[in-house]
Each structure stands twice: as C-alpha cells, then as structure tokens.
C-alpha cells in the first residue's frame, strides 16, 4: 500500500497528530516559535467542521479550551514561554476541575521575552511546578518529527483517560525543523474517547465521585446532567467545600491519579539505546537527544560501553526505572539546554548523585556533538 508521507516541520507534525487524535477545538494567540500550529489549524479545523478561534490573549485561549472541553470536545492550545507563564492559573483550574486538554509549549529562551527565535529547554520545571499549589502534571516531549506526531496523539489519549491537562514541551529546533513524517492510516494508532457516565437522566449524577478504578465518568455540558464545576475544593457534586476531609481527599486524588501511573504506559514513555553493560549512560530529551544519539551510536561502533536513555515523558518522572537502569553505570550524564533542570530529578533517582554530570548550553544554540565529546573526554581522563 502506498504510504502517506509528508515532509513537514515539527509544528505541522503536532497539528497532524492532534487532528489524527480527533481535535475538535483550538484557541490560541500568536507567539514565536509556536505560531505555525495555530496557522495550520485555522486552515484545517473548519474543513472538518471543527472550531478555531484566535483569542485576545494567552489567558483567554487557555480558558476557552477548558470551556469547550466541558462540552465534550477534544481541545488544544499552543504557545511558548511568555504565553505559557500567562496560562498557568487556568492550567491549575483544569487540574483542579479535572478537565481534559492539551497545552503545547514550543520552548524558546527565557526568562521574560528572552530569545524568541532560538532554542531552549528552560521551561521543564515550569511545566512541573508552574501553577500554584500541590499538583501532578503530565509533560511530554519528542526528538523527531515522527515522534512529535505520535506523542501528540498520546497526549490526547492521556488527557482523556486521566481527566487532566497534558503539556507537550517541544522546543524551537524540533518545532521548526523539517523531516519525514509517515502518516498512519486512521485507526492504526488506538485513540481514547472520553469516558461518559452511564447514569440515566433524572438520577443523581455525581461528577466528582470516583468509580472503583479511580476514574470519573464525565457528562457533557448541554446534556441531561446539570452540575457545578469550580476551581475551589469541592465535593462529589462539584459544590465548594472547605471540609478538611474533602480538601485532603481531593488533593490526594489529584496527585495520586497521575503519580501512581508514573512508571507504566501510556503515561511513561522513553526510549533506550545500548544500556546493556553501559559504563556511561547519557540521558536527554527533545532536540538535544539528537546530538546525543549521534554521539552514542558512533562511540558504540568504536566499541565504547556507552548507552542512552531518551526521555519522552518528563513529568511524572519515572524515578524507579531510571534508578534501576543507571545502577551499574559509572557516570550518568544529563544533556539539556538549560542550567540543569531535569538533572535534579535524575540526581534524586540514582543511588549516588555524585556520579551524575551535566552537559548543557544556555546560549540559544543546539548542543553539538563536539560539546558532548569534550565532556566525555574529561570524564574518561583524556583531557579536553
């Protein structure tokens, strides 16, 4: 069968993935380097009778997708650093009210307006802790155009399964780089549809009462069940409550429903290369992972015992998996384009944090193969 092959940039692959996953509604605001996502969706969504709206700001875009999601639609917004900062309050609302949505952040340099046209991976910890209060979050990334497509689909599946916002943390290089994308036939990649309540009309529906398996079946706004949605701590009817038992129970639920599944599929996604007997393990993600993979492949061919873990899910972090995989390595090296954000999680995961080193760049340029080589030579006692 003839394959449907495209030559597209990462932002377009994200659009293709979202449409494949069944995106119905997009609200956004222009911002470099993510704008192509909204440009393409403004053209594509009306064709499939979906809704596209350019809102007055980043906050409004986030709010609009939450409203649309409540009517039963699959929703997404896309932004970059400054816009991601603005979305944080509404993101917390989606967490608290348990409303599925996908938020793309094509990272650029920060803080503030920073370096809009250059690459960075500086929002990793913001994705984890950006909105206030204790919470769990799912944040995913990718290093190839094909992976952007597939991770985007998984983001929708996870959002719908766990009733949570999912953050797609791409970066400027991977967003703008062009590469081959093979579009699978519809139905080839399984899609998750929202779990809807089977409670009949006229019977009391409890929108925030967990089933035995911890899931909360939803009812679309506009359908028979009328209920309250709020960002306040709330009881099983969605009615605001300050009762300590309810506050404690809800906060635990919001965290447990994600972190309990941190090390299993579909939330946990990573790739591993040459880990068997590896004395040095590199850990990376996003566009940095491309330079790492190139380095590791070449050194393997030269007989070095060097392995690589590419993280695709950044949060929740799979602490036990990383601990186990790195147990026998002499050095663990985290490669990322920030001052050392993911490395903190890696240090927390491994038994001896002293064996964890950082290779980074914070000047708006991609980490090169020679950047990695220089550090490896130092670690191997070969000088620079």
């Amino acid at each position, binding site marked *: 069968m003839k394959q449907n092959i495209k030559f597209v940039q990462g932002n377009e692959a994200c659009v293709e993935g979202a449409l494949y996953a069944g995106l119905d509604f997009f609200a956004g605001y222009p911002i470099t380097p993510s704008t192509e996502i909204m440009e393409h969706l403004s053209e594509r969504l*009306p064709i499939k009778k979906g809704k596209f709206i350019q809102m007055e700001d980043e906050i409004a875009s986030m709010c*609009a997708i939450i409203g649309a999601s*409540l009517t039963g639609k699959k929703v997404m917004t896309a932004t970059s650093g400054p816009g991601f900062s603005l979305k944080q309050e509404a993101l917390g609302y989606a967490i608290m009210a348990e409303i599925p949505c996908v938020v793309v952040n094509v990272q650029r340099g920060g803080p503030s307006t920073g370096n809009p046209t250059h690459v960075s991976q500086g929002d990793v910890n913001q994705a984890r802790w950006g909105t206030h209060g204790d919470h769990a979050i799912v944040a995913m990334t990718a290093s190839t155009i094909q992976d952007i497509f597939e991770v985007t689909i998984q983001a929708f599946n996870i959002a719908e399964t766990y009733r949570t916002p999912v953050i797609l943390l791409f970066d400027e290089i991977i967003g703008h780089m062009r590469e081959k994308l093979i579009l699978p036939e519809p139905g080839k990649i399984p899609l998750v549809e929202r779990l809807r309540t089977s409670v009949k009309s006229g019977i009391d529906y409890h929108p925030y009462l967990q089933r035995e398996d911890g899931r909360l079946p939803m009812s679309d706004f506009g359908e028979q069940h009328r209920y309250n949605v709020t960002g306040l701590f709330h009881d099983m009817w969605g009615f605001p409550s300050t009762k300590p038992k309810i506050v404690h129970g809800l906060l635990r639920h919001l965290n447990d429903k994600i972190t309990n599944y941190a090390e299993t599929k579909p939330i946990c996604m990573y790739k591993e290369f040459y880990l068997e007997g590896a004395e040095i393990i590199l850990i990376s993600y996003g566009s940095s992972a491309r330079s790492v993979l190139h380095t590791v492949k070449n050194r393997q061919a030269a007989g070095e015992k060097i392995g690589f873990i590419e993280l695709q899910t950044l949060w929740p972090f799979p602490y036990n998996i990383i601990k186990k995989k790195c147990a026998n390595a002499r050095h663990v090296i985290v490669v990322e384009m920030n001052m050392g954000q993911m490395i903190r999680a890696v240090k927390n995961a491994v038994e001896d944090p002293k064996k964890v080193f950082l290779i980074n760049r914070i000047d708006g340029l991609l980490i090169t193969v020679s950047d990695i080589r220089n550090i490896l030579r130092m670690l191997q006692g070969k000088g620079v």
Partner: protein
Amino acid sequence: MAFKDYIRERFFPHIWCPGCGHGMVLKGMLKAVEKLGINKSNIVMVSGIGCSSRITGYVDSHTLHTIHGRALAFATGVKLSRPELCLIVPMGDGDALAIGGNHFIHACRRNINMTAIIMNNQIYGMTGGQYSPLSGVGKYASTAPYSTIENKFDIAKLAEASGASFVARTTTYHMREMIDTLCMAIKHKGFSVVEIFSQCPTYFGRKNKLKTPADMLNYFKNNTAKIGSEAKKKNPELIERGVFINKKMPEYCEEYDKIIKKANNTLTNTEV
C-alpha cells in the same frame, strides 16, 4: 416551570450578607428565564470570582464557576463549541471590568451570542471592601481611607464603543424593569450587556453613608432615571436606566458557520 424549579436547593444557604442585592439579581434572572421558558439543560451559566460569581452555583443549570475575570473567555469556548446553548455570564464589576476588562471588550467586539450581567456594587465585597473601577471619585473603601481619586468606567458607553449589540442598565430597586430587561437581553441574538446596580450595604454602604439596604435601594431610586425622561432632562446628574443599544449585527457563531462552508466550498450565493 416555576422559577423555584431553576434553583439548586442543595447548595443553599447562600453565602451573601443580609441585605445584599445579589439575591435580587438571582431572582430577577430566574424570573426572566422562567418567562422565556428556557429548558434548564439548555442553559450554561459561567461566572468568575467574587461574591457575584457564586450566583451560578445556586442555579440548576450547567454551571461553570471559573477564575477571576475570565468568565467570558470560558463562556466563549462553551458557546462556540455548542452554539445552540443559552449562555448567561453573571459577573461583578471588578471581575468584569478590572481583571476581566480585556475579555469584556473583546467579547463585545466579537458579538458572540451570550448575555453578560454585570452586578455593579461598586466595590470588591468578597475581599473586604476595596475600591473598584466602578467606585468613582470621592468614594471611601478599605483601600481608599482618604477617598478614591480614580474615575469610573461608564459600562454602557464602554460596551457600545466595543461593539456590543445590546446594552442596558437597571437596578435592584427596579425589579420589574430588571426582569423585562433581562428577558430582552437573553432573547437578543448577539452579545448583550446588562449592568445592574446591586447594593453592598456591608462594605460600600457602610463606608459611604448608605448604611442600610433600604438606604442603598432608595439611592438607586433617587439617583437614576429612564433614558430620555423628564426627570433626566431636569436633572442631568441622574444615571440613565433602560436600553441604550439594541441592534441587529452579524453574530459570531453564525459567521463561523459560514467559514466552515467557505472552507468546504459549500457557501451559497445568498450567504456570501
């Protein structure tokens, strides 16, 4: 359906202070919905944060109590997604016009079919009586112990200039007028704005020599007049009540349907 059937009794008693005007707005709103005979399951009420915003919880419709100032942005998402639903967005004056001012003018500009109700009590009540963009010069508040020096918005003029296709003002003293105005606003196809003066005796009244709810209601009675009335001509200082704007304009969701047709090359000549 009796208006009481629109109430969600489970969520009572309400949180408002004795004498607060917001309960009167709740009654006026439900009377209007009852008059229009709208099915509960077709109503989505969206609110932000503040005393006023708690109003949604007490109504047995789909209710969305969101974050401060952003109710209209959430409502836009709901409406564009399900245009057949009736959207009512009650907000406070600070909620709608300070933190939410940008969303307000843009919702007016889009002329998306929903009703924004601004319960104007001229103060931030829930946080304890700070001055709002609707307090006006010379008013006292917990953050204006020497009186405010800030000018207030004229909501009707702001809404009109921003492109709203229905704009009206009324007060909690004028209940029948409030119900009729809300009926017109909800029926109107396009973005409708109804400003309702609502009393906050607890904070605004107490600090501004209008200590009892009755003092405040009398203030609304004595300081307002119908648009173009004799009273207004005699005393130009009076605040006008009534419908300022009521016009037909292209509605956002209907225009969006045309975009869908354009994208699929199915637009007919009469729709162009």
